[in-house]
């Protein structure tokens, strides 16, 4: 891996972390908020709903098939 590749890989790991779907979901939710904000409909409720859904889905993926310590 070249140094440039290693740099971008480190930046990706740092910002996006181990769940790229959540990062993508945040970007999409912000985009949807921007689109709805252009209309006469209130747009503030989109982010709380999106965050709740993204968090729950991310935890569900991580917990699938897992067992917990006592």
């Amino acid at each position, binding site marked *: 891996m070249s140094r440039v590749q290693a740099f971008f890989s480190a930046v990706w790991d*740092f910002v996006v*972390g181990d769940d790229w779907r959540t990062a993508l979901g945040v970007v999409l939710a912000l985009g949807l*908020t921007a689109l709805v*904000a252009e209309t006469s409909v209130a747009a503030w409720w989109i982010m709380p709903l999106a965050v709740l859904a993204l*968090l729950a889905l991310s*935890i569900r993926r*991580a917990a699938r098939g897992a*067992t*917990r*310590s006592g």
Partner: protein
Amino acid sequence: MAELSGAEIGLAVSVFLACTVEAVEALTIVLAMGTTRSWSSAMSGVGAATLALAAIVAALGPALTALPIGVLRVVVGGLLLIFGLQWLRKAILRSAGLKAKHDELEIFREEAETARALGGKPAGFDAYAFTISFKGVLLEGLEVAFIVLTFGANQKHVALAAVAAAVAVLVVIAAGAAARAPLARVPENTMKFAVGVMLSSFGMFWGAEGAGANWPGGDAALLALIPGVLIAANAIVWMLRRAVPVAGVEQPAPVEAGEPAGVSA
């Protein structure tokens, strides 16, 4: 002294907590290097990493604050939210027992053992102690630098964020010097949980504002968002504890259709 707004207090508390957690983790590594290899080389590593972090903040801070407020809020809000959800996800998994909690004593033992196994402590400069301390402080510090920059730039208060971070580091150093041991009793996961809640709430608030949404009640919406995220996160922990089986405990076999419960064939 000028009074701080609610958002500024939130900024200071979030940065302080995040920085305390990361400083505790960095302290463990530096202590292991100092006690097993060389204090002067380990401290040189700490100094070099601190300078590197200061340079990053000094270089990127003015660039971020120069962005138009709308662009800044959507970019910073989005990044804070992504970052906050990562912290919150890990803290939830740890609280529910699905991920091992940070054990500073165990990490200290491992680092010290590896350092001792290398043997041959040099009389002068110890490159190993320097490098490990440098990397430890830089990597743990990068997350804090990111939070200081994004939070601070958004509130136009990088200085306040930097002061909160510096106070946290000083508190951890003082506690470490007094204890002369890794700070194993710091409730790291609780603090990470709190940071995750704060970053996610502020990220959501600023991101939506930057994207053009208007929050009902303006800044007061944060007073609903922060407890809302906290309650949701705790509810997820509660559900995980109920739904996920404990390791080593045999689960009852599923009952076949038509078979009365508790009756074996």
